[in-house]
């Protein structure tokens, strides 16, 4: 639970830290759009490489970002499989005849049961799951004797595979970029940056200051609430709630025993925060002075130009190719 890094600021010292939050925000949006527009396989890999090198030159530990990605692995994996199974456009690039016989179904079930029984003892769970899936396919492919019910084929289409790849890499790039932003930017700076970036919306009577405040408070409270959740789990564990085990019925009670205090504490926290803000004369919409004033440096101009160049390059290559 503590490994979730989204939204957590980590003090450090590199060019990413000294950049203006406005630059980082705009660059993030521009680069995200660029990542969405990329259509060529090679460009995608280059983009992934560039973002990774940004981590390295920005002195952010890759391990930390990887740890942040880990909870999302399942989501990434799921979208990947989903695309491969259901997107049936383009050429077939892989065909695997399958035989559903009494023996092969029995063997497949046996493999699945074996996986279920042993999965808790294995360290690399995702890899183990993958191996099991491959094993099940192999069983259906190779065991063609026994009592045959039906034949089928497993097809992978070119479009499916490429879409799956693009979606996955895009998601990874987006998560990495936004993690860089939150790791290197103090919540207060982020707030100020957001406010300034959104300022033009003020023309259509949207209170950008409030929106910025809401977003930054939400980001700020993610790690706090995770800590609270951890404490609640400990407190309930000492009353005999076993979060590791239990049947479905027990699971429901376990989750309720976690969620209800969580809810109450969040409301209490926000109430306290509102009072603390009011006690320091915070009035929504009133102009306020700042302790830190944002300064635009040459580095920011460079970063801006580079990100817009990247976007232009992607658009041009999309139009030309």
């Amino acid at each position, binding site marked *: 639970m*503590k490994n979730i890094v989204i939204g*957590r600021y980590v003090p450090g010292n590199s060019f990413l830290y000294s950049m203006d939050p406005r630059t980082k925000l705009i660059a993030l949006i521009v680069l995200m759009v660029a990542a969405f527009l990329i259509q060529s396989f090679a460009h995608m890999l280059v983009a992934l490489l560039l973002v990774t090198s940004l981590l390295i030159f920005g002195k952010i*530990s890759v*391990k930390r970002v990887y740890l942040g990605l880990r909870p999302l692995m399942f989501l990434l994996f799921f979208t990947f499989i989903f695309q491969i199974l259901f997107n049936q456009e383009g050429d077939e690039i892989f065909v695997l005849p399958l035989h559903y016989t009494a023996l092969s179904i029995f063997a497949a079930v046996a493999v699945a049961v074996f996986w279920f029984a042993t999965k808790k003892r294995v360290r690399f769970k995702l890899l183990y799951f993958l191996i099991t899936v491959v094993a099940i396919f192999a069983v259906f492919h190779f065991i063609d004797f026994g009592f045959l019910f039906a034949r089928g084929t497993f097809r992978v289409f070119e479009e499916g595979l490429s879409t799956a790849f693009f979606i996955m890499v895009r998601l990874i790039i987006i998560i990495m970029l936004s993690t860089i932003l939150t790791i290197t930017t103090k919540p207060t700076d982020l707030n100020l940056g957001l406010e300034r970036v959104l300022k033009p919306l003020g023309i259509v009577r949207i209170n950008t200051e409030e929106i910025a405040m809401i977003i930054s408070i939400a980001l700020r409270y993610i790690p706090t609430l995770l800590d609270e959740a951890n404490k609640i789990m400990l*407190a309930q564990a*000492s*009353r*005999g709630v076993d979060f590791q085990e239990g049947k479905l019925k027990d699971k429901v009670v376990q989750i309720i025993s976690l969620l209800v205090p969580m809810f109450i504490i969040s409301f209490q926290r926000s109430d306290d925060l509102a009072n603390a803000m009011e006690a320091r004369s915070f009035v929504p919409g009133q102009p306020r002075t700042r302790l830190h004033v944002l300064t635009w440096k040459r580095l920011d101009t460079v970063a801006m130009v580079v990100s817009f160049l990247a976007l232009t390059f992607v658009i041009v290559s999309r139009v030309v190719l």
Partner: protein
Amino acid sequence: MAIKFERVGYEYQDIDGKGYLALADITLNINKTGEFITLIGETGSGKSTLAQHMNALLTPTEGRVHIFGVKISREGKKDKNLKLNPIRQKVGLVFQFPEYQLFEETVGNDIAFGPKNFGVSEKEAEERAKKMINIVGLDESYLSRSPFNLSGGEKKRVSIAGILAMEPDILVLDEPTSGLDPLGRNALLKVFYEIHQKLDKTVVIITHDMNTVYEYAKRVLVMREGNLVYDGAPTQLFSRKNVKNWNLDVPDILKVRRAIEEKLGITIEGETRNKADLMAKIGEALR
């Protein structure tokens, strides 16, 4: 020996793998019966971390903890047959903030939640809820109320009743009297003392209040920067010279006693744990 710490260390892991040592090399024995222990130390000295080792909520990163014969260690953590739940029934731990555990619709259900988790029948759990709500100083009308509409002190009492209802052999309380008014605090401390005396159970209390320590405790543990620096009787603790270095206040009774000794030029013999003791001893000394 009910709880036995063998050279226990605990390191909180940062996300980069940077560690923060919360406990260092702690060796300690706690008996199943007859102990009334207070655990003191500055904030951040590792008191709560130590307490959370006592019912296996945390697994030591170094050394071993034996709780009722079950060995808790880093190596043994992967053992799937290791059942921690029975330990948590035997060693009841009350957290400092009741907000972390209250969740049921009524106070009664919330108190009965713990026992039910440990396989106590519905009826029996309700019986216990009734009994415990009285013990912590609230009446039975509270049982049907929502735990969220109570005052801070009442919530605290309900959360304590929730652990008492599990009927643990050893009771560990993390600052049970913080946020209570002085009268309520004394009443609750008496409850713990009674549990200790009548049922001969071991009670461990984390506190900042030196008066509690001096009046009730048979044994004090002093934590400082993750180390256990003192383990012994409270009367000897405050006569030590280095007590000042540990940022501990001197109990009121002791201050009064020392002032009287100085002003009247007399020496009072023996221990004076509470007011009545002190009065009697002053009388003796003046005669």
